């Protein structure tokens, strides 16, 4: 069974729910992180192979490269996810500092109060 795909989509749905319905900036940012993590799980699952080995060539693997290629998991999604995690860390860190600043300026974390620009 492909539980990981179901759980990945559940995480995405959960993240969307947090983004749409929560009335707190910190929770919205958490929702964003959860949504991205769902996508990461999805990506990792794409490259997963049951009973596979890590895609790292070590000394004893050199003699049997074709066997290694047949057994190793797909390394590309892992590289993609690593990159994406780094990007996501930047976004979350930056969003949290912005939330701190907005709390200092507005005295609240409620996004519906952050609408002074409109007027």
């Amino acid at each position: 069974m492909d539980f990981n795909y179901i759980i990945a989509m559940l995480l995405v749905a959960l993240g969307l729910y947090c983004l749409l319905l929560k009335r707190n900036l910190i929770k919205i940012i958490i929702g964003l992180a959860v949504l991205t993590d769902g996508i990461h799980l999805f990506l990792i699952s794409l490259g997963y192979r049951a009973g596979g080995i890590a895609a790292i060539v070590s000394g004893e693997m050199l003699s049997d490269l074709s066997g290694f290629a047949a057994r190793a998991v797909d390394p590309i999604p892992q590289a993609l996810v690593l990159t994406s995690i780094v990007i996501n860390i930047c976004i979350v860190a930056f969003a949290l500092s912005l939330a701190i600043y907005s709390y200092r300026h507005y005295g609240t974390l409620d996004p519906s109060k952050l609408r002074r620009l409109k007027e």
Partner: protein
Amino acid sequence: MVSESVLFGPGFWGPVVATAALLLITAVGWLILIGGRRITKAKPSAGKIQTYACGETLKAEEAHVDSEQFFSTISRVFRPFYRYVRPGHTGVLSTYLFWVVVGLIIILAAIAVVLR
């Protein structure tokens, strides 16, 4: 570059010719303006320069058109838009996110319809 006329569909449009004509017309208009000033000398007085407000004296700060109501006639033509769409721009973050998701669904549906 030579003044190459461009054929856009049916008709003719020579950009250089048109620009020259526009400049010519501007020059003629300016000459008429200058000539008119020659013939009748302007006699500016404080009362003439002032914005007329039924005899009241207005300060320069007050004689400014409100920029939101500047085109109230045009806004009346598009009344449904200003009544229903404009209040949607609330400035609330959750609304923005809601519209993003709605937009995704709209685009999904539109692509599905078009590609069928």
